[in-house]
């Protein structure tokens, strides 16, 4: 599968439209925000939001078909936020999500040393396998919007980029 898997950075407007039905926002894709503050994660203020933040909307393609989406942006001069990892159900458990996140993180130089995300309760173990850990002493918090059946909430997870050997920055292939 890996050889036929490709990742790209796509326009945000396209990302917004493509991810909307997967987030049950079909017809209201225009309300999907480019970035979130994430309960105070954002350290930039005022006009810094527009002259310091970079946003990379990312997608995964398998044999030319879009099968996964995520995005990454900087929340400070040293930390990143991964948001909204989504892989179509029929392509899950094949390493697509992990490879896509690695691709997204490898777009950034080393001075961004940490990466954060919020994980649903059911995904914690998956993200642990990807190298993320629940940030201590944070605990589970409620969903910002509607509850998701079977999920108890979200929790802050992070991954250090300091010690991870990474492939060439623009290598456009799966691991």
């Amino acid at each position, binding site marked *: 599968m890996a050889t036929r898997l490709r990742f790209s950075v796509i326009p945000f407007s396209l990302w917004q439209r493509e991810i909307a039905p997967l987030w049950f926002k079909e017809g209201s894709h225009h309300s999907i925000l480019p970035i979130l503050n994430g309960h105070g994660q954002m350290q930039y203020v005022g006009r810094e939001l*527009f002259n310091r933040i970079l946003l990379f909307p990312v997608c995964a393609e398998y044999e030319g078909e879009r099968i996964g989406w995520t995005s990454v942006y*900087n929340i400070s001069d040293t930390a990143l936020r991964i948001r909204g990892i989504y892989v179509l159900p029929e392509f899950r458990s094949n390493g697509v999500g992990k490879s896509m996140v690695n691709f997204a993180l490898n777009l950034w130089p080393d001075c961004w040393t940490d990466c954060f995300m919020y994980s649903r309760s059911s995904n914690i173990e998956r993200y642990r396998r990807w190298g993320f850990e629940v940030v201590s002493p944070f605990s589970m918090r409620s969903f910002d919007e509607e509850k998701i059946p079977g999920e108890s909430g979200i929790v802050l997870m992070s991954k250090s980029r300091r010690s991870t050997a990474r492939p060439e920055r623009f290598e456009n292939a799966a691991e």
Partner: protein
Amino acid sequence: MSDHPYPEPSSAQAANAAVFIAANLQTFGLLGDNNLLAPDRRDEASGIAREFTLGNHFKFGFDGIAFNDRRLAASRYWVEYGAPSREHEGFQREFRRAIAQIHANYGTFSVTSTKSYIASTVAREARDMELDFKLIAIDIEGFNPVRIEDAARTERHSVSWERFCEFALNFSRAGGCSDPWIALEAFHGELSQVPHIYDGAELRLINNNFDTATKVAVGPLDWALVDNEKFTAINRYLLAENKPGIPQILRWSPELIAAQLDSPAYRDWLKRAQHASAASADIRVNKTARMQLMTDSYPGLQVTATFSNDRRDPRLKEQMKLLRRRMRNSAPGRRMQHRYPLSRLAALLGIAIEPRLLAKLDLYGGVHGN
């Protein structure tokens, strides 16, 4: 290779963040070619013509433009504060100075007739300084009349519910706000013939790690100054109507903001919040500090938290709920917030707050100089 753009590679693996950002901002910034949602946003002119705060040090807007209207559902709300030009002289002196400056700039002004802690202290200071000002009281026909504390200065208006609704719906469209209580406050300025100092837009500190649904702390204390989009709805309405007014008296000058955050009331509250139990409301928001600051500064003055508390009319509250729905249908307001980390705000304002009280989370990293 993909047809889509890729970031400019950094010159070195450990490149300076500023270099990488500068190299990629034009394409991957929030207003960059790859992420821009409305192509004309970058060229939009600023709409400001009035002084809302001293020298308009407090700025707000959408997508990097100051004093503009929301254009898109995904537009990013932002605010910015100016830096002080001197040390503050304490809350009461700075507050008094603010009101004197407003009077010097605008002449006679008005303020809402209410016991709310903002409007009633404005009136108290104006009275003490013997400034020319009016109190505006609005009675809505069919509901409890407003209590009048100072009949000689009060300009009383009696309006029908329908007339107020018509105003509120216009207000929601111009201000992008579906809160009928803010519309009612804005209505005071509408009926006043002189610039109005509006009640509201408190200095609200929020603990980012308080889960409001379960009412427990889910992480270490992490304070931020919150600016709700609706706090500037009256500004947008005033801009649309080309009317003068002061919608954020507590943000009038950087020194006034500094004086509030640096006051004993705020410092005591920060200390208490640090030791509060996880379920305590004290660690969620600084309402007690805001009220304490006023009662410390104006002993004996009976104040309420909001002007809606004054109305004490359950029928009006019920009608306001229904009106909120109509306003939302007419122009759905957005609930976007700008959160300013308290550690960064304290640095901007030159306030020395003990690091343990600031509860700054080093976790998320810092922002270096431009």
